[in-house]
């Protein structure tokens, strides 16, 4: 692949009228999927991709080559050079990224090699045995990726990065009632994985499922959102913090830089330096990824803005993509928060959210993998999955308390290439959360 970039640059040297950006990516995965406490399938997959954007003035054309042999590269570039002049201009394009700052080097372990399949099946066999004592089977995924990226452009930018995320998701499902609980591990350093602690946390959740299953009526409830839920709402909120959404008028934060939008105890930072998060070195166009305050003591501070939209909107550019979010902890313990709820809900996980109107941050979605009734300060019953219809802005403004510790939560980014992000978040106590219907199923 190194040779492919050099070869392309050599070809492009004979076209001084062109600007270019070349991105090479390799993505390898070892992907174990399991169900009913047994292997469903094991996938090993290796993908390589070379993508090239060429610019002639404000005209551009892009191409991708998955198998970058010289003859293919020559043909693709010839085709691109032949067509780019005939295309209409993008008047908002000014220049490619020119930030040449390099991120500090850090050692990266290839976790595909470090955690062989035999280790994975060993861990899963022991977790399955522990869950089976309570008539639960385990379902989920145990994934190791290894990804590299090199980005080169005609402004002299040449940046390489490497990441090797781990994602373990275990759902324990009761064999009769189908009541489900979830435990996860995510990060890059498997030494943070404590199998005994993971197993004990899973079993504690399993034990909480012995209560009756009930339905609750639609209405407004005080709820405790598990860290995963708070993190996911904040992920969706970040859509409106992008300069792109500002540009297309769908941002909730339009005109709100410097304004108090949430309570003063809410602070959100996009921080790639936290060792417990899966770290990112650069943004999509190569700008260095640095800590960026998004919400500081309730005040909206910054849009996430790449080079293109910086030129278009006049906002300062950064390399951030909201992939390393940290929501600051509060001051109460989870027990104190739960104890303060007379009648409410504990929500473990969310499912299938979609915006209704992004500018208003309105959306709908469902609870999943463990919803519980809280009565008189204690979890009392298991509740069927519920639908909510809410505005994230309202949820955050209704936060009464945040827990005094954060948890690292992994999320799978299951789109073009399977990637994994992590977010640090505490539990949150939220009043008047709008449950709009019940699913009548667990």
């Amino acid at each position, binding site marked *: 692949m190194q040779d492919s970039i050099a070869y392309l640059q050599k070809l492009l040297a004979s076209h001084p009228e062109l600007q270019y950006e070349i991105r090479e990516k390799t993505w390898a*995965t070892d992907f174990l*999927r*399991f*169900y*009913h*406490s*047994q*292997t*469903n*399938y094991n*996938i*090993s*997959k*290796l*993908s*390589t991709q070379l993508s090239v954007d060429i610019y002639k003035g404000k005209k*551009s*054309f*892009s*191409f*991708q*080559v*998955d198998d970058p042999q010289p003859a*293919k590269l020559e043909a693709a570039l010839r085709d691109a050079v032949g067509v780019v002049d*005939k*295309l209409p201009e993008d*008047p908002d394009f000014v220049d490619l990224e020119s930030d040449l700052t390099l991120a500090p080097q850090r050692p990266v372990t290839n976790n595909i090699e470090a955690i062989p*399949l035999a280790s994975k*099946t060993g861990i899963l*066999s022991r977790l399955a045995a522990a869950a089976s004592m309570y008539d639960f089977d385990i*379902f989920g*995924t145990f*994934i190791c990726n290894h990804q590299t990226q090199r980005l080169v452009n005609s402004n002299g930018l040449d940046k390489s990065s490497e990441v090797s995320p781990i994602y373990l*998701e275990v*759902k324990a499902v009761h064999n009769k009632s*189908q009541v489900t609980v979830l435990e996860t591990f995510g990060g890059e350093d498997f030494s943070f994985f404590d199998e005994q602690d993971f197993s004990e946390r899973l079993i504690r959740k399993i034990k909480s499922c012995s209560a009756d299953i009930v339905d609750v009526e639609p209405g407004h409830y005080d709820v405790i959102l598990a860290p995963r839920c708070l993190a996911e709402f904040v992920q969706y909120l970040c859509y409106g913090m992008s300069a792109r959404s500002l540009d*297309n*008028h769908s941002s909730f934060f339009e005109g709100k830089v410097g304004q108090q939008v949430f309570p003063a105890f809410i602070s959100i930072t996009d921080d790639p330096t936290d060792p417990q998060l899966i770290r990112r070195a650069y943004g999509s166009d190569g700008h260095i990824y640095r800590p960026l305050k998004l919400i500081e003591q309730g005040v909206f501070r910054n849009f996430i803005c790449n080079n293109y939209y910086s030129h278009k909107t006049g906002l300062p550019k950064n390399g951030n993509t909201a992939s390393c979010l940290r929501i600051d902890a509060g001051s109460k313990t989870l027990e104190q928060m739960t104890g303060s709820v007379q009648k409410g809900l504990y929500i473990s996980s969310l*499912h*299938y959210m*979609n915006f*209704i*109107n992004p*500018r*208003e941050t309105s*959306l*709908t979605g*469902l609870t999943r993998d463990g919803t519980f009734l809280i009565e008189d300060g204690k979890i009392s019953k298991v509740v069927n*999955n519920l*639908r909510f*219809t809410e*505005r994230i802005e309202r949820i955050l403004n209704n936060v009464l308390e945040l827990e005094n510790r954060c948890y690292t939560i992994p999320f*799978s980014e*299951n*789109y073009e290439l*399977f990637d994994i992000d992590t977010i640090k978040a505490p539990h949150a106590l939220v009043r008047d959360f709008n449950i709009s*219907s019940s*699913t009548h*199923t*667990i």
Partner: protein
Amino acid sequence: MEDLIKRTLEKIDLSRVEFADVRVTRTDNEDIYFMNGFLRGYGSSRDSVAIGVRVLLNGCWGFAGTSDLSEASLDRLVRTAVSNAEQGGKFTREPVTFPALPPLRASYHFQPEIDPFSMAKEEKIDFLGGLATRIKPQGKIVHSIVMAQFQKQQRYYLNSEGTWSHTTFYNTLPMMEVIASDGNQIQSRTWPGHMSAGRGGFELFHRQAFEANCDRIIKEATDLLSAPVITEDRADIIIGAGHLALQLHESVGHATEADRIFGMEISYAGKTFIKPSMLGKFQYGSPQVNIYSDSTDPRGMGFHPVDDEGVPGRRVDIIRDGILVNQQTSRHIAHMLGLEPSSNMKASFADDFPLVRMTNFCLAPGSGSLEQLIQDTEHGYLLDFTKTWSGDDNRNNFQFTTEIGYKIENGRITGIVKEPTYFGITQDFWNACDRVCGEEEWGFHGTFSCGKGEPGQPMLLSHGVAPARFKNINVSVKI
């Protein structure tokens, strides 16, 4: 390519494995994207190759995929697939098994009316740029896009039973959208909606009347800014075909994927409320509701002569006269359920593991035109053009918002409403269907991006539908 695939299969010690297959895909893609009247992106990839090897060894699947077709890579691929099955087999309880099928040879090569890959780029740009200019920001319109995605894919399949297939398909996703703003709120309108993809080439832009609908979406997006919302708690709704395709997809299509019954998708896509004991008994919908999976209809993107584990294309009734009678299955799952496999195992690319997927998943036509159905509706709403969709883990509860609703009074459309939102429970909803329009309104609506599986696979598939009416639906969702 046939030689390479045969050679790869021969690298597997077939005396050791219960089953094996080798797949190759060769894919061309082209994406064109106009924003606010200007060309924002034009990208292409040609002859993107992927190969995948799947083996069943000691009752456990192992799989490996790559884009590297070198001999050394193919050797490594086979070794890895076998090793994955061996290692995975150490964490199994019930081995995968299914009956053999007789070998067959199949070939099918689709030709579009207008091949987007041999069409001059300038011609495509001229046409799409013309649309982009017509809908660029003006009046209350603050943002607009016109986009096209073209795909040509050759698929090769060979398995250890001797089944061979080679097919070529062209698929196109045409789309345009405008966003209107009054400074406080935004409203959007798309054409032809989010289920606009289909089998074919550039002719889809003409067939779906893009030019004739530019002014309409500008006006409707603008009018929506001052339109009322639905105020009733319940109403009769007619669902237009584009949106009904997604309703069918989410609340019947996914619910009847049988891998969900066994929890194979719990970690991502979810489960289903359906249990094996419901087959032949469960009143899924009213007697007007007839739903089938049909991979034999070449008009839809779900057509194939052979699926991705060697099962010949089939039409299978899923719901007959309202009763659930079958499922979408793999060979393994069909065997567990005592059914014939339904030919629904598909992978997006050859380096993806095949999963139970919808192919052409269709609601059979009833009778009458949409105009007649509106005339026959005293009070209600015609809802179309999906804005928001969401279905629960068991596919039992759904909620949809469409871009626009057309108010119906005494058999006539009398106005519009914005962001009409309805929700329901799957069985109640389909039992509230009292009429499906006829053949004259029936057609295929498709998507390029049905997400399922991990690593994720965006699947291309189609739904044959005609508009249908549902009585007394809950439309009282307030935000």
